[in-house]
């Protein structure tokens, strides 16, 4: 399996460095380099490209707007965004990037990208929503979450323990650590409604599979105990009580 690859970056050393590392890793054929997005668009329309490594800040059109244009063509290549600084991470995912690499490049990080790409192209046909965290279609099988500068793939049903709204952000407590995302709890609720998650409080959504104990609490409500998070006072609030009782036949 060889990935036909196009490198798009306006800086020559950055293109060369990426090419060298990719060729060292193998399974990759770099079929071209572009120093701007318009040239890249032309090549992608003509040739069959599997993956585009796309710098975000470029002259003429930015990597983000190229990605947007690519999403409108048939069989778009997969996009791996590259950038010096990670202020566009969320935008990049909303535009269907499947990965996001920070400069300076390292071989270790790019190996992960390549093996992920190969796995994906071998097993299932990838639609560009598969990794998107902001898709309104059916909820993705796995979701991508940032943990420091690493992108972790999380299986929501198996790995997310609970979600907590905090300071207008959502904290995601998973078995791989705690992550933060700028997506309101309400959106999460919509997406994971029928996948074992339950909204129990204005600040909490829990994965039912992780509830260890349900303790009767004041005012006819319940306190939920979750292993390793016994300090978290997750209370089923009155508003969500009827649904909760119904689900557990209390």
């Amino acid at each position, binding site marked *: 399996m060889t990935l036909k690859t196009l490198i798009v970056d*306006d*800086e020559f050393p*950055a293109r*060369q460095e990426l090419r060298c590392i990719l060729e060292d890793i193998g399974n990759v054929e770099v079929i071209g380099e572009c120093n701007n997005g318009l040239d890249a668009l032309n090549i992608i329309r003509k040739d069959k490209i599997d993956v585009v490594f796309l710098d975000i800040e470029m*002259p*003429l059109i930015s990597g983000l707007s190229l990605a947007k244009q690519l999403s409108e063509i048939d069989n778009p290549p997969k996009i791996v965004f590259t950038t*010096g*600084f990670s202020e566009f991470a969320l935008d990049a995912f909303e535009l269907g990037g499947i990965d996001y690499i920070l*400069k*300076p490049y390292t071989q270790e990080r790019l190996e992960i990208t390549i093996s992920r790409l190969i796995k994906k192209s071998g097993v299932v046909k990838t639609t560009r929503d598969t990794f998107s965290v902001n898709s309104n279609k059916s909820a993705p099988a796995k979701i991508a979450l940032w943990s420091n500068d690493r992108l972790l793939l999380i299986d929501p049903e198996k790995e997310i323990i609970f979600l907590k709204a905090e300071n207008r952000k959502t904290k995601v407590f998973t078995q791989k650590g705690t992550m933060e995302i700028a997506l309101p709890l309400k959106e999460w609720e919509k997406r994971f409604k029928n996948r074992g998650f339950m909204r129990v409080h204005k600040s909490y959504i829990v994965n039912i599979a992780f509830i260890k104990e349900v303790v009767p609490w004041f005012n006819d409500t319940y306190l939920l105990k979750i292993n390793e998070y016994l300090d978290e006072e997750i209370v089923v609030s009155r508003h969500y009580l009827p649904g909760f009782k119904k689900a557990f036949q209390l």
Partner: protein
Amino acid sequence: MGKREQNLNSDYEIELATGLGNLISAQIESGRIKEQTKLLANAELKALQSQINPHFLFNALNTISYYCRQDPKMAKKLIIYLANYYRHNLSNLKSLIPLSQELQHIDAYVNIEVARFGNRLKVTYILDDVRDVKVPPLIMQPLVENAVKHGIQPKLEGGNVIIKVKKHDDYYEVVITDDGVGIPEKWLKTLLIPDPNRKSIGLSNVHKRLLTIYGPDSGLSIVSKENFGTTVSFKIPVS
């Protein structure tokens, strides 16, 4: 009689005390304004310095990483330039530095950008004898950075930046010119007004510091035309 004299005295004393009070408070006030102006100039400088400029840093490191493989000697040079660039950015809070030092800082920056962009960026210096000139630190460097970042970099074919210091009878003229994409007219008017929401504070910051240090007649003047380029200049009085 004695009582009346006492009254007179006390009226006179009250007036004197009030006058003195006004005088002293005016002086305290003016002293405080001076102090605040100084503090302000300092704070502005710190704000500029604390801009670590992460895009520049990480892209520079990526460039160096390429040269480590292709041309280790060049990589070594770039590391030194990067060190000099950040050292100057982070140190030297003295009020004035030799212009030559500011130019070295600019040169370190320029060398890294030329390594990144290759022949898309050309920088020329036209300098009169500047040995005796002292300037506030980081007064030219942000202008050069602006010219590269917002003038040349968005232009596919790249362009030129000219850095000029010209000696006149009672002042030095500093002119930074680029033939990049230019600044849209609607932005020109607001460019020098500080706006905390703007990402790039370089120009308004330099402008404000020039006004604070050299008085209301100084400050930046900007001439720009879209698709033709931008010229930013200011004057340093001979002290």
